[in-house]
C-alpha cells in the first residue's frame, strides 16, 4: 500500500448504497496501527456508514475492509465484533444489568468471567469509582454512562476502538474531559482509534489524522497541523472556519 509497515486497517474501493442513495463511494484508505483517526463531515456525508462497515453493523455493497490483512466478511460477524471496541452516542447500557455486568459483557459472550478486580481496573481507567460496579445504569449521569460505555468497549482487550459520535450527547465540560481521557487511554493502551464526529475542534484536538468526508467521498486526509495551516481544500477549511470564527468572536468580547 503506502509504506513499509503493512496497514492495520485497510479500505479497498468500499461502497455502500441504500436503494438509490450512495452513502459511501469507492473509498480506499489505509490506517496504520496506533493512529487516532477522526472522521469529520456534515450529517449524511457517509462517515458513520464507513465506520460501521468495519464491524459489519453495515454490510458494504461492494469493496472490502481488511483488518490485520483479513477480510472482515470472512467469519461470523459476532466473532469479529468481540475483537473490536465499539462506543456510540446512544451508549446502550443494558438497564437490567449492573454497571459491572455491563462492563463484563464482551468476555461473557466468549464464555469467560471477568474478575471483579479487572472490572474495577476498567472503571478506574475511565475515572469512575470501582464501587459503582454494583449500581444500575439508571442511577448514573450521562457522562458516567458513557465512561462505562468506554470501559465496556475496552473489556474485550481489543486493539481497535470505533467511536460513533461518542460524546455527542454530553455537556461541553464532560465532553472535553472524557475526550482527553480517551486520548490518553489510546496512547497508554496502544490502541488504534477511529472516531466519527461532526465537531472539527474535537477532531483537531484529539486526533493524529483527520479525514473529511463529503457526499460519500474522503475529500481531505491531513494531520491537524496541516489542516490548521490551510491544507485539505474547501470543505475541510469551511469546517475549520466554524471554531476559528467562534474563537475570534470570543476574543472580540473579552477585549
Amino acid at each position, binding site marked *: 500500500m503506502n509504506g513499509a509497515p503493512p496497514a492495520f486497517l485497510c479500505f479497498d474501493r468500499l461502497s455502500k448504497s441504500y436503494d438509490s442513495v450512495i452513502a459511501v463511494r469507492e473509498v480506499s484508505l489505509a490506517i496504520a496501527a496506533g493512529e487516532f483517526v477522526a472522521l469529520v463531515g456534515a450529517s449524511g456525508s457517509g462517515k458513520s456508514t464507513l465506520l460501521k462497515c468495519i464491524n459489519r453493523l453495515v454490510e458494504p455493497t461492494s469493496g472490502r475492509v481488511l483488518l490485520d490483512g483479513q477480510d472482515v466478511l470472512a467469519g461470523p460477524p459476532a466473532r469479529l465484533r468481540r475483537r473490536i471496541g465499539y462506543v456510540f452516542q*446512544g451508549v446502550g447500557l443494558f438497564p437490567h444489568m449492573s454497571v459491572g455486568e455491563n462492563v463484563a*459483557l464482551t468476555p461473557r*459472550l466468549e464464555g469467560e468471567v471477568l474478575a471483579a478486580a479487572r472490572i474495577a481496573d476498567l472503571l478506574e481507567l475511565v475515572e469512575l469509582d470501582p464501587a459503582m460496579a454494583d449500581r444500575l445504569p439508571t442511577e448514573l449521569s450521562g457522562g458516567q454512562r458513557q465512561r462505562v460505555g468506554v470501559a465496556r468497549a475496552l473489556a474485550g482487550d481489543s486493539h481497535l476502538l470505533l467511536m460513533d459520535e461518542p460524546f455527542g450527547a454530553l455537556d461541553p465540560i464532560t465532553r472535553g474531559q472524557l475526550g482527553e481521557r480517551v486520548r490518553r487511554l489510546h496512547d497508554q493502551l496502544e490502541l488504534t482509534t477511529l472516531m466519527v464526529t461532526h465537531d472539527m475542534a474535537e477532531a483537531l484536538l484529539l486526533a493524529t489524522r483527520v479525514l473529511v468526508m463529503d457526499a460519500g467521498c474522503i475529500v481531505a486526509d491531513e494531520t491537524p497541523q496541516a489542516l490548521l495551516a490551510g491544507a485539505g481544500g474547501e470543505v475541510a477549511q469551511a469546517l475549520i472556519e466554524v471554531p476559528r470564527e467562534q474563537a475570534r468572536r470570543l476574543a472580540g468580547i473579552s477585549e
Partner: protein
Amino acid sequence: MSALVEALLGLGPQMAEHVLLCAAAVALGIAVALPLAVWASRSPPVARVTLGFASLVQTIPALALLALFFPILLAARALFGEGLPTLGFLPAWLALALYALLPILRNAVIALTNLDAELIEAADGLGMTSWQKLRLVEAPLAAPYVMAGIRTASVWTIGAATLATTIGQRSLGDPIFAGLQTQNWVLVLAGCIASAALALVADGLLGLVERGFAMRRPRLVIAGALLALAGIAGAAVSLLEWRDDARETVVIGAKSFSEQYILARTIGQVLAQAGFAVEYREGLGSAVVHNAVASNAIDVLVDYTGTLWTNQLERTDNPGRAAMYEQIVRWEADTTGVRVLGRLGFENAYGLAVTQETAHQYGLATIADLARVAPQLTIGGDPEWFERPEWVAVRDAYGLRFAAQRTYAPTFMYNALRSGEADVISAYTSDGRIAAENLVVLEDPHEALPSYDAIVLVSPRMAGNAQLVAALQPLLGAVDVETMRQANYAVDRDEDKRSPEQAAEWLLSAIPR
C-alpha cells in the same frame, strides 16, 4: 345465603378441573406463542400472518370455537385412530389454547419489535449472536410485557373455560349452565363468584410475577410463580383423590334444560345405588350430545325420538310413533353402536293445549274435535311455532282454520290462555306448567305431530354391561307424562323451587319400581 355457601363448597371438583384446564391451555398458548413471537419479531411478513390469524381466532365466539373442535377432532380420527377423544378435555384444551394465543403473541411481538434501538445496536456492536441477544437482552427486557399478555390470556381463559361445560368438560360453567336452565340463581351466582374469584387470584399472582420482572426483583417473580404452581398442583392432587375410586365410573350426559337435568340425576341415583361411580356432564350442546354418547364421551343419555329422527337419521317423514322408535333402535345398532335401552314412558312433544273450561265448553278431547270449532277460536304460539313443520303438518292433517293467530313469548303464552286472549296454545307436552295450570293436551289420533318419546341411550362402551342395563330396567316405561310434568314444575316454578337432584329423588319415589 347459606344456600350460596353450600353451593360454593360443592364446587371443589369443578374448581379443580377448571384450574387444570386453564393452566394447561395457557401453558400450551405460551409454548406456541413465544417461539412464534420471536420468529415474528425478526420477520414482518410472519408477524402479519401470525397476528392476523390470532386476531381472526379471537373474532370467533368462544362457544363456537369450542363446538368447532368437535368436528375437527372427529376428522382427525382418520389420522390418530378411533381412540382420539372428541369431547371433554382435549377439544376444550385446544380451543382455549388457541384463544389464549392472541394476547400473549401480540404483547410479545410488540415488546420485541419496540425494544430500544440503541440497546439492539449495543448488543450487535458488542458481538452477541442472535441467540445471545435473545437470551441476554430481548427476553429479559420483554419479560414484563410478555407477562402482561400471559396475565390477560389467563383471565380470558378462566372466563371462557366456563363454556367448556357445553362440550362435556367439567368446569365452573356446570353450575352456571345448570342454574340458568333451571332458573336457580344461587347456582348461577356460585359459578360466577367462583370463576371470578379464580380469575382475580390468577391475575394477582401473575401480576406479582409481572411486577417482579418490571422492577427486576427476582424474588417477586419466584414468589408469584410458586404460588400459582402450588394452586395448580393442589388442584391436580385433589382430583387424584377424587379419581381414586375402584368402582366403574359411568358418565351421564344431559342437555341444557330442566327435564334433562332431572332425568340425568334420576339415572345417576339409580346407578349409584347399584354400585356405580357416577359423573355428570350436564349442559351439553344439543349438537354434540348424540356424538358424545356415540363416541363414549358419555355413557348414558336421555334423548327424544323426534329429535334423533330429524337430526341423526335426517328424515322428514312421519311413520308413526311405534315405527319411528323401532327404526331408530335399528339405526343406532347398525351405524353408531349406541344401544337404545327403551322408552321411559312419556313424550316431550309438541302439542296443542286448552284450559279445562274450554275443553268442557266445546267438548274437546282430540285435535279432530278442535277442527270443528277452530273458526271460533284464537290460537297462540311461541314465535317459532308457526314456522315449524309440526304446525304445518297438524294444520293440514286436521284442516285447522282458526279465527286468529297470535305469537307470544313462551312465558306469556300461559298467561294469554288464562286471560282468554288465546283459546288454544302450542305447548311441550311434558312442560310442568301444563300440570300447574291444569291444562288439557288434546290427543292426536292421526299422529300428525311427530312423536318425541323419551328414550334411554347407552354408549357402545357400556352397551353390553349387564349390571348397568339391569339397574336401569325398572325406569323403562315407568315415567308417565304427569309425573314428569310435576318433576319439571318443581324445578321450574318460582316459589319453593327444588334442585334437579331433589326433583329426581321425588321422581324415584313417585314411580312404580
